[in-house]
């Protein structure tokens, strides 16, 4: 009897695991099935390197360099804001704050992660963008800068809570040994605790990167949607996710534009897949200190 229950349980979990893999490969398969036909019209090189995205003009231009640039600039901007804030708050919560403060601050930061992205988008449109126009005197508040700020705020709780988990798993003895050797608290955190939690902290940044580059609603609402390679952070951009989401609704099934949007999704998928793979291979293999 016990044996049967064991086997049933085992096969149930096995099937669940199998399903996730089936879904993953199903999604990858459909992406490539619908995206690859574009090769017949545009070479891979033009698709990636041509900055002109005019999918419905005559003749149409399917170049996504400006869309890639848009995605990268808002993502980098978000990380520049979110990494110091996220890791900083993680260090404070894990290493410096007393028990009481920690119990107040931690859930508040995690609350940020629970706000729906459309609410962030509204905030960006209604408050941040008019504010930027007033402060900097720029022609439009819907630009790479405001999208970066909003995405940065969204990514902070991811980096913060994951880094904080990593920091708190560093053994107490390491800190005590460091302090006993005469290191200050700052030296202990920077030279002992952070390096020991390295893989977890880097993992949190990679996850934050994935969240920022894949976020769609906020960039549709706040980034401005201009398909150009920005020369300043105050110019509107059109990240890849925004182009796919905004244009997919009305494109004709099976048209070149339709395939081009799937091809953008492939590029997006490859970028996040490669980032995950690189972190997995480079950082997690090499001597995990935990």
């Amino acid at each position, binding site marked *: 009897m016990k044996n049967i229950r064991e086997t049933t349980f085992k096969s149930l979990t096995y099937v669940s695991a199998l399903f996730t893999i089936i879904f993953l490969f199903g999604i990858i398969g459909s992406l490539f099935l619908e995206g690859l036909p574009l090769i017949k019209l545009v070479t891979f090189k033009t698709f990636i390197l041509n*900055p*002109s995205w*005019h*999918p*419905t*003009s005559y003749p149409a231009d399917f170049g996504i360099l*400006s869309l890639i640039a848009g995605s990268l600039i808002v993502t980098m901007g978000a990380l520049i804001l979110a990494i110091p804030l996220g890791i900083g708050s993680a260090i404070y919560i894990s290493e410096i704050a007393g028990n009481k403060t920690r119990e107040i601050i931690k859930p508040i930061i995690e609350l940020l992660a629970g706000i729906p992205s459309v609410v962030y988008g509204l905030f960006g*449109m*209604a408050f941040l*963008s*008019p504010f930027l*126009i007033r402060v900097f005197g720029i*022609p*439009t*508040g*819907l630009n790479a800068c405001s999208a970066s700020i909003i995405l940065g705020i969204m990514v902070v709780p991811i980096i913060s809570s994951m880094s904080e988990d990593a920091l708190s798993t560093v053994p107490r003895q390491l800190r005590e040994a460091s302090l006993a050797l005469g290191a200050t608290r700052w030296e202990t955190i920077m030279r002992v605790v952070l390096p020991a939690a390295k893989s977890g902290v880097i993992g949190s940044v990679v996850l934050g990167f994935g969240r920022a580059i894949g976020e769609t609603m906020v960039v*549709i*609402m706040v980034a*401005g*949607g*201009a*398909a*150009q390679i920005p020369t300043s952070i105050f*110019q*509107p951009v*059109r990240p890849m996710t925004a182009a796919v989401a*905004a*244009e997919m*609704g*009305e*494109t*004709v099934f099976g048209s070149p*534009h339709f395939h081009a949007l799937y091809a953008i999704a492939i590029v997006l998928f490859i970028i996040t897949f490669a980032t995950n793979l690189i972190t997995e291979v480079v950082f997690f293999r090499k001597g995990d200190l935990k």
Partner: protein
Amino acid sequence: MKKTISLLLLALLSGCAPHIERIDIAGSTTVLPIVQAEAEEYMNAHPAAAISVRGGGSQVGITSIINGTIDIGIASRPVTSVEKTLAAEKGVKLIQATIAHDAVSVVVHKNNPVNNLSLAQLQSIFAGKLTNWMQVGGPDMAIAVISRDVSSGSFEVFSDVVLDSVRVVNSAMRLPSNNAVVSAISYTPGAIGYVGLGYLNSYLNALSIDDSMPSVSSVQDASYPLARPLFMITLASCSPATREFIDFVLSASGQQIVARQGYVPREEMQQ
């Protein structure tokens, strides 16, 4: 009990092949809201009718009707001579009915003192050749060009009438909906964009184009350059059900639906 069963059987037998009249419609997304509302109303009155309405764009509507894959094509532009030739080659004759009219209104921030632009100025602004309001008689302020996503029907007419074959400058913002344009312009002092007639409000200034204001009346007397008719296109050999539906759209009650959707009914047009 027996009675119920026999009644049920009777109902099944007599009603087993109710004559369902399928009408497939596809095409312009600008006309889509009108036709959806018309179809709902029509199906309420005619339970036997089953109308399906899809978007795809005017091009798709016209091509599909020529290919005979749908019953009615909807379009925000007339059938071109190329398409007429194509239809003739296929041996079909197209009928085109104007079902409503629409105007695309050019709007700026409410504090912008500019209140008129010529079509040529508008083209230069959207092509990126004019970049400061000073160049069109306004204050020294950079112009923030706001266009719509390429899937937009308003973008279609705007690019036809204003841009001709010129492309929208790459730095133009492309927003996903009429509402997004309205809110972006209300927050952005230097912005210019375009929305449908029904979206004008007190946060926006509608510009006159070549001294003609966008309004129901300027659409009616054809003085507004960005006005355009909306069409239903079908085959001369269409089914009676299809013809009946088009007649309903053109009838007084059908035209009331057009007005309710914020468009200009056809009978109010001065010929």
